Structure formats: structure tokens, C-alpha cells
């Protein structure tokens, strides 16, 4: 069987890169921290996002964590793009409070504002309850606070806690699974972990092989996994 995409992209494909198994030696050796310098997020916000990502997609347990996948870098970079400024959203007023949840998001905030205001809210809430910022809490307490945010159980002054949580979880998953060209999913670790072939986009050889296991690992748009 010819792997057309490999030639098209000129990707050198090693045995490790082809493994559907997500635990190649290369990935295990990947650094857990990043030299990336955030542009939108402040130092304190970056620390918060890093701490949250490490709880949402932790390094512990089998499979790559969100930090190994460089998810915080993805988030900071997204916030500098039109998406961060709310270009994909309608943000004109008036803003009506208390509408049915089924009518969707009705706040005035762009993603950038949700991060800026929401992180301050979350740290304020942590200081009130625990006398420390979120990042200084032990992981078990961080998890507990995230669970409360998930269910909207914490009372934040600007951004409802469940809105901040949904924004963080949504962006964390995006950063984990998006093409590496956006800064996350470094070396396609998340795609290898689940067995998604990424940007291959050619299954001509597999059209009549339903039921057989697909053997090839992922490729990325840039061809380098970054």
C-alpha cells in the first residue's frame, strides 16, 4: 500500500512516528514546561492558565498531559487572533440578564475579556476562601474549585464561574487536539494518543476495508508536527 501523503508532505516517517500507540519514547522525553513567552496573558494569568490546564488534562495517568502538548501556549496565541477579540461573535448590546440557558451566551465579553476578568475573579475567590491564589493551592483543592466552577457554584463578580470554566475547558481541548500549527498538540502527541491520523485526509486505500484496523500514525499540516 502506498502512503501518498507521506510523499506529498515530504515527512520523514519513523517507526515511532507511525505508532498508533501514544507512548513513544520521544513523547515521554518531551519537556513538561515551555520556553514560550506569553504575549496576551500576564505573568499571573499565565500561571493560572498553566495550573488549570495541568488539572484539566493532567500529566498524571497514561497519555500526554496538556502541558506536554503545550496547551497554554495555544491558548495565549489564540487570544491574539481575531477569535480572541470576539470577531466570530455578535457582541452588540443590549445585554439581557437571566435569559433561558437554551438561548445561549448573552454576555458582553470576548474570549480575551473572559480570561482577563475571569482569572481575576477566580483568584479573588481563591484568596477569599483559602487566602492564596489558585496556583498556590494543592492540586486536590484546585480540582475541587474547578468542580465548583464547572457547576457554576462559585459566585464570581464579573464572569459566571461556569462560563469561565467552559471557556477554559473548551480552549484546553482545542489546544490538545488542534493541528500543531497553532502551538498546542506539540509533536501530535494527542493525535497519537487517541489514534487520529490528523491531516492525512486520504483514505482511498481504505474505502473497501471497513472493519480493519487503520495502521498509520498522524501527519500535520506543516508536516513537522509543530
Amino acid at each position, binding site marked *: 500500500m502506498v502512503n501518498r501523503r507521506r510523499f*506529498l*508532505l515530504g515527512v520523514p516517517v519513523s517507526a515511532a512516528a507511525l505508532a498508533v500507540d501514544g507512548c513513544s519514547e520521544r513523547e515521554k522525553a518531551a519537556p513538561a514546561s515551555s520556553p514560550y513567552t506569553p504575549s496576551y496573558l500576564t505573568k499571573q494569568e499565565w500561571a493560572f492558565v498553566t495550573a488549570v490546564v495541568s*488539572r*484539566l*488534562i*493532567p500529566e*498524571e*495517568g*497514561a*497519555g500526554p*498531559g496538556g502541558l506536554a502538548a503545550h496547551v497554554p501556549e495555544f491558548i495565549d496565541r489564540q487570544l491574539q487572533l481575531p*477569535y480572541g477579540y470576539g*470577531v*466570530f*461573535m*455578535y*457582541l*452588540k448590546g443590549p445585554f*439581557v440578564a437571566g*435569559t*433561558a*440557558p*437554551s*438561548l*445561549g*451566551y*448573552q454576555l458582553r465579553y470576548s474570549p480575551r475579556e473572559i480570561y482577563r476578568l475571569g482569572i481575576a475573579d477566580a483568584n479573588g475567590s481563591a484568596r477569599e476562601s483559602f487566602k492564596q491564589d489558585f496556583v498556590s493551592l494543592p492540586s486536590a483543592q484546585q480540582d475541587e474549585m*474547578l468542580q465548583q466552577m*464547572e457547576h457554576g457554584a462559585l459566585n464570581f463578580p464579573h464572569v459566571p464561574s461556569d462560563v469561565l470554566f467552559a471557556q477554559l*475547558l473548551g480552549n*484546553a481541548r*482545542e489546544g490538545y*487536539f*488542534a*493541528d500543531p*500549527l*497553532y502551538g498546542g498538540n506539540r509533536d501530535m502527541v*494527542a*493525535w497519537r*494518543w*487517541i489514534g*487520529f*491520523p*490528523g*491531516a*492525512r*485526509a*486520504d*483514505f*482511498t486505500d*481504505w*474505502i*473497501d476495508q*471497513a*472493519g*480493519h*484496523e*487503520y495502521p498509520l500514525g498522524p501527519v500535520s*499540516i506543516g*508536516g513537522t508536527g509543530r
Partner: protein
Amino acid sequence: MALRKKKVDAVIVGYGWTGAIMAKTLTDAGLSVVALERGPARDTAPDFEYPRIADELRYGVRGELWQPLARETVTIRHRPDDVAVPYRRYGSFVLGNGVGGAGVHWNGQLWRASPEDLRIRSRVEERYGKKMISADMTIQDYPVTFEELEPHFDHFEKVCAVSGAAGNLRGEIQAGGNPFEGPRSAQYPTPPLPPIAVASLFEKAATDLGYKPFPLPSANSSVAYTNPYGVRLGPCNLCGYCELFGCFLYSKASPQASILPILQDRPNLEVRTESHVTRVLLDGSGTRATGVLYVDANGTETEQPADMVLLCAFQLHNVRLLLLSGIGTPYDPISGKGLVGKNYAYQMCSITAAYFSEDVHINPFIGAGGAGQRVIDEFNSDHFDHAEAGFIGGSLIYAGGTGGRPIAQMMLPPGTPAWGAGWKGAIRKHYRHSAPIGTQGSVMSYRDRYLSLDPTYTDTYGQPLLRITFDWHDNEYRMAAFSAKKMEEIVRAMKPEKQATLLMRQGTPYDTRIYQSTHTTGGAIMGSNPSNSVINRYSQSWDIPNLFIYGASAFPQNMGYNPTGLLAALAYFSAAKIKDTYLKAAGPLVSA
């Protein structure tokens, strides 16, 4: 004072499927035509090229091909006495933008209507009696029959190189096709692709249960094919970047893949992109359109005079333009009077996620918007006895799987942690071994479900947004529950380890946050006379005979099938009449 352009024979508003069909028809006849498209120019190359198109985040999540909501959205409320609020982020439906319109990012599931869908009120009254239709239901027959539309369904299937298997060829039932379809004059132009893994399991289970599964008719060519316009399409490779994406392989039919190549060099056609039409202009009598007003790419307000005006925008935009232009009488749900905005409808869908053991290889990333899927039609339209079921309408039930793109299409069993180490373990366990099976069901039209202009919110030009007033009715909850029960039986027979169904249960409000269907319909409906409709059987305005309105805005109620086959057939039916009659003697094509 608006810039005034030279008068042309016809101006087309919106350059998607119906815009392309009508541009071809009118330029074939020698007319001078201007097509105005609000979005950018887009073509297979460079806009949908590999590898840039294989990007879930950019196209499937952020929605690069969708209408930017910051510029214009709709407002939504559930009941006429609620205050509507803006649809601020995409959820329930996704609107197209740019050349090709929604015909770029569609799934390519290309169905014909069932013959009985086109005469639903008569059919229900004949078979079940008048009391089967509740007093608040405002459904009505189309003023055109399946037999009249058949040549046009057939032609459009060929334009789109549809892959499929005929079930009823000139009245003869064919094994392997849809035995419930209306008689077709010809086989599908290209053969179906073999089933993807989930469709293969579905096909066997459905057959064992006594159903007749068949390949979902897909506007993805399965072979190299030259369409009636001499445009060549290529075979689909099930790349997994189909619906929500443009096709890089010239396989999925779209205006640019199927029709526009032959229009590009026509001297009597000018396409102006980034040109946003703000109103249709009328003469002093209000019975004749004189052209349109639009804002061009530089922000200059411009008038395009024309002898004919054709609204070929998306359903919601056609209706909004009529309301903004003061054409016809806006519908009033209290009095039931007025017609513009009347009979807004949608579709009601449910999904069963099937979770198989790790030795069942679903390979969810192998898929397309429709190609390789399998479907049954037993519980759709009027293909079964509704007397005991206690509702009107129905659903098709299909084994989907369009690419297993992990940001938006990861499926995990209920009870799985949404984050943390448990989530990370679950995504690995289930990703390659889970698959969706879905229902897509009809929605009837009702007195209190309609479109109007919003009194508060405006678009980037300061014009009122369109307001949707919509929620489910009991008939649809019953239809969905019935369809989901049939679907769940089939899924059980596929023998997954677990299965879970997402269903709009009785009392669940219409939820704008969850993607359900972009098949919004109605608002400028078609009918037999000016008292029950905005347009006649030839898509011509009753009030303004030189104004034609195309698209799903014409549907008096919605069906369980995807709308593109029907709306294209209605456009071709109109095109034939315009060519044969209107261009010789302009005037009403049906006497009121």
C-alpha cells in the same frame, strides 16, 4: 446619494446554489446578469486546497467559511410574548458566506422529496381524516407535483455527480435502493461508495430487523465523472474534512465544483463579491422591482437597476430582505394575517452514540458528509401508518460518521469525566471504537412559529436583525421519540458495549447552543394562490411579478430529508418556465 450602476436585465442576490443555477439559465438565454454576493470570492484552489483545508480548528470550530456573526446574526425567542436575544455564537445552525454559499460547507446529502411530502395536507386528510391535523398547524400542499419536478431532480443529481443506488426506477422497485422513493427516470449518475465501518454494521443490523437499508444519496462523486455542463468531478476519498469544509478533491458538488467553471468567462455575467444587498427597490406603484441597493466592498452604497430581481440568498436572508424592503405584508401570529415570515420550520434530530469493544475498528476519521453512509426510510414521510403513532411526519435513520474530528466529534459514554486523568483514559479507549447513528426528522409549520424583524438589535449597517420565534410542538416531540426508539433498536442489534441517545424529550426547549441542523425553512412560502403564499409554483412573487425568490424559504413546512435537492429542483422548474414563457412575455406566470 447612492452610486448608480448601468441597468442590467437581471440582478441575482446571493451566489450559492440557486444563484448559480439562475445565472446559468439567464446568461444561456442571452440576458445581461449581475450577481451580488455578500461574502468573498472562493474557489477550490486556493481556498480549499490541501493541506490547509485539513484543519478542524479553523474550519470546523471557528468556522472560517461561515457568515461572521459580528456583522449580522439573528435573534431568537421561544414564544411570541418572549423578548428575543441575539444568536451570539454559533450552535444550532451554521450559515454560509461567500461564493458558493452554504453549498460549500454542506454535507452533500442530496435527497429528493417524497411524492407525499409535496401534498402533505391532502395526503394526511385523505388517509387519516382532517382531525389528524391540529388547529394550530398551518401545513399546506406544494403547488407542484413530484412528477413535474422529477426531470429537475434528475438533472440536478447529474450536475452534482450524486453517488447512490436507485430504489424505484420508472416504477420498478430495485434491490439495494430506497423502495419508498418516488419513481425516478434514471439511475444515480455514479455508483455508491462501499459502506464505512459503522454503516456496514448498521446495514447488517437493519437488514436482520427486516428493514431495507440503502446508500445515503451523496453529492460526492464516487468515480471520475463529467456532468451535463462538461465539468469534471473526481472520486471522493472519504478524507474526513467534508461538511463544514470546502472539498479539495472536486468530489463534493458545490457551485464552484459543478456549475461556476462554465460561467466564469461569460461576457454577459458579472459577479461582484463583498457586495451586501440591503434592500430591493420598488417603483412608485409598489408592484414592480426596479433593482437592488447594496453596499460594495469599499462601503459605497450602490444601486443596481435591473428588469428582473432574483433573491437567491439563504432562506433566512431572503425573508429578511423582503421584510426590510417592505414587500408583502409581514405575518401576524395573532390575527394569522400577512404572509412574509409565515411558516418558519426546522428539523428535529436525535443521535445514538454506540460504544463498541476495542476489537471493533470503527476508524471514525474515514468518512464524508454523506458518502459511505447507510440509511433507512421506513419511518419517514408517510411511509408508515401514522394513525396509531399519533403524529404527522417522520425521520430518516442513518449511520453517520463524517470524520471523527476530535475537537468537536469525540463521543464518550455518559458518566465519563469531562476532564482529568479519567477523561484522558476514556478518549483513548473510545475514540477509535465509537460511532454516531442519527435521525433527521420533519417539523410541521404552526401559527405561532414565524420570522419577523427584531425591534432592538441591528447588523453592521444598522438594519434590524431577523427574529426567529420558534420552539417544538407536541407533534414533533412524539415524532422524535418514535424515531429514536426505532433507531435504538437498530443500534442494539449492532451489538455495542454501550449506547446513549441524545433526544429532545417532551418539554425540552429548542436549544440554540447545540448543533442540530442548518435546514431552516419557510417565511416566503410557495402556494396555490396569493392568499396562502408569497410565491407561486414558479417561485415568482404574487405581488411583484419581476421578483423571484428561491431556496428553502419556499417550503411551507419541513420534511425529514435534506433540503438542497428540493430547492434546486424548484429553481430548475422555475428556470424552465422563465425561459419558455417569461422571457417572451414578462408578467404573472400564474393568474391570481
